């Protein structure tokens, strides 16, 4: 194990170097660009054996990665925002063909107005494309998630692509202390890839056939089955990863929730700040806690019911809007998860940080002071009204 000062992008690039995928096809977009550049450098310097395909667009990046994956090899790309939007069509194809592609997504607002800074509208817009989606709290988690994503996606019971989200600039460019595993430890952890499809093999195979009314539904049902298995696999892989790294991983992470009357639910880097805010609020005597959601696809509904069922109010932080008029996507889904509970807690939604608007410790602590069952259903934090 080596400890280094790395940005999130550097940490992700290091994970990719250690995975040594057979094909990487990628296209630059802020704030992901550095990953492509660093990886190109590894290729030039012979630190990886990868064939790097410098495609002319993100649509082609994921299309080429799908091509490589049906050739039975590990293949990766990375993107942000408009690049992810441009891939939208192929996201569904990668999942539908059951290809365990791993893709870091450095989150950024979607245009218009154009804005290169962090929010989660890009990933949220792609959340129902059949991909498993993991969020990262810090650069360390981004690194750890990329490595675990290989195992999760490739698991025989899952066989689905995995997105690893890390917050644009906040994590991609912020430099942190990151503990890297030895190359050999990563090699042993990810193991040899066992593809289920290989167009380079000796037996001819037809991939991507036309499936009509008599078969399409069954393909989709099988895909859903893969997602149903994913929570168990995410937890199993997390435990195994803890064994080699000392860092535990599951679907969600609970922070000081045991006796909490009010619990915040958050994604990504904000979950890190929220932990500190919980500590500060507790010093004021407020019984508050935090649940960090790591996997948003599949959605950890059962785990959330367990953690949130006993509290009085849940405050859900969304760094995107879903335009249903009901707040943000995470809020809506948390409410749906709580719905089966008798005497469920009240849920309130807080939309924050769009287009990189900062959220400070005072905002979070203030929110917890306000987090009583009397406020509005949806609040826009830090916006000029």
């Amino acid at each position, binding site marked *: 194990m080596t400890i280094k000062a790395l940005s999130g992008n550097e940490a992700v690039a290091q994970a990719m170097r250690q995975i040594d995928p057979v094909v990487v*096809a990628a296209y630059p977009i802020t704030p992901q660009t550095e990953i492509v550049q660093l990886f190109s450098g590894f290729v030039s310097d012979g630190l990886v054996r990868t064939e790097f395909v410098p495609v002319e667009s993100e*649509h*082609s990046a994921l299309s080429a990665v799908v091509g490589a994956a049906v050739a039975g090899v590990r293949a990766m790309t990375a993107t942000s925002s408009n690049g992810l939007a441009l891939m939208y069509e192929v996201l569904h194809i990668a999942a539908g063909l059951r290809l365990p592609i791993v893709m870091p997504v450095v989150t950024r607002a979607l245009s218009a107005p154009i804005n290169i800074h962090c929010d989660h509208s890009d990933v949220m817009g792609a959340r129902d494309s059949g991909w498993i989606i993991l969020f990262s709290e810090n650069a360390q988690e981004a690194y750890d998630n990329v490595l675990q994503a290989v195992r999760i996606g490739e698991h025989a019971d899952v066989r689905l692509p995995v997105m690893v989200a890390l917050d644009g600039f906040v994590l991609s460019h912020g430099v942190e202390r990151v503990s890297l595993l030895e190359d050999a430890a990563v090699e042993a952890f990810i193991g040899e890839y066992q593809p289920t499809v290989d*167009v380079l093999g*000796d037996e*001819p195979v037809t*991939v*991507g*056939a036309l499936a009509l009314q008599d078969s399409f539904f069954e393909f989709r049902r099988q895909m859903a089955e893969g997602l149903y298995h994913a929570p168990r696999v995410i937890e199993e892989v997390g435990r195994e990863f803890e064994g080699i790294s000392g860092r535990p991983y599951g679907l969600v992470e609970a922070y000081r929730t045991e006796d909490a009357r009010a619990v915040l639910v958050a994604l990504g880097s904000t979950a890190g700040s929220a932990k500190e805010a919980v500590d500060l609020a507790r010093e004021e005597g407020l019984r508050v806690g935090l649940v960090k959601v790591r996997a948003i696809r599949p959605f950890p509904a059962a785990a959330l019911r367990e953690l949130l069922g006993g509290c009085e109010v849940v405050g859900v932080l969304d760094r995107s809007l879903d335009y249903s008029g009901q707040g943000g996507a995470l809020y809506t889904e948390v409410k749906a998860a709580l719905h089966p509970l008798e005497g469920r807690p009240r849920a309130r939604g807080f939309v924050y940080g769009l287009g990189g608007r900062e959220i400070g410790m005072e905002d979070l602590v203030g929110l917890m002071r306000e987090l009583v069952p009397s406020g509005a259903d949806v609040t826009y934090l830090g916006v000029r009204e």
Partner: protein
Amino acid sequence: MYSLKELSKRPELFEAGHRACAGCGFPQAVRLVLKATEHPVVVAVATGCLEVTSTVFPYTSWNCSFVHNAFENVAATISGIEAAHSALPRYGKDVGPRHFIAFGGDGASYDIGLQSLSGALERGHRFLYVCYDNGAYANTGVQRSGATPRGAGTTTTPPGRFLDGKPQRRKDLTAIIAAHGIPYVAQAAISNWRDLVRKARRALDTDGPSFLNILTPCRLIWGTAPEETVDLVRHAVNSCFWPLFEVVDGRWKLNYKPKRRQSYVDWLRRQRRFAHLFDGRHDDLLAELEAEVEAAWRQLLERCGEVDDKS
């Protein structure tokens, strides 16, 4: 080169039983291209009639490996496969030689997938791209494409009081591809099968990207009878609408000069998509269309060094 007898003995990689219409031109193009292969083949096909008629689950007409990804990304898809193949020896897994062939219709190639195609050619992947050009989007019901000849009626250029069919000229995709400076580019036709197979062979031997543009009639688009398919292509070639040529390492070479030139206007007359031009009130337009074909042919002769007098 191969005789017909020899070709018939070579393995059939595109099998009977596909659901293309009687008289469809592309099955012949696909079979002839695949007949020219020597190694195991990986085919990628863009969304379109070839894809939907050949892989209706759980059936497949492909006796080689086949991938369909989407409409506009067949070149990017084959890039990824080729990249995997070229990297594998570095991982100690040499699977041996493979041919990589992408097929796309004119919609996939001239229009929506042109960026993906251009990018793959510029990057220099070792693959053959075959455009089967039937002159419109057949799969979605005969809409115009960048390859549709001027004057043709399609469902998005329906002849009417204000429109004489497609107003624009077709783009010259083969020349656009040649401008990429890739090692091998050719235009071929299913009527001239020997020339087509030779070109496919040459393309497959190329160490880098290669491109074939093949004219393949569609009876729905063209409005013609199935049994006329091959003769219509022959007529297209002899009218100089679809000349046979190749561009080898940047040098243009004419492969066929009709001994007896057939009339382009007569070729139009044979197809229902141009019927509205033969009401006696479109003679000026017909003359223009003929002049356009003639000008393009002259330009090609010049590119191929076939014009002696520079006057």
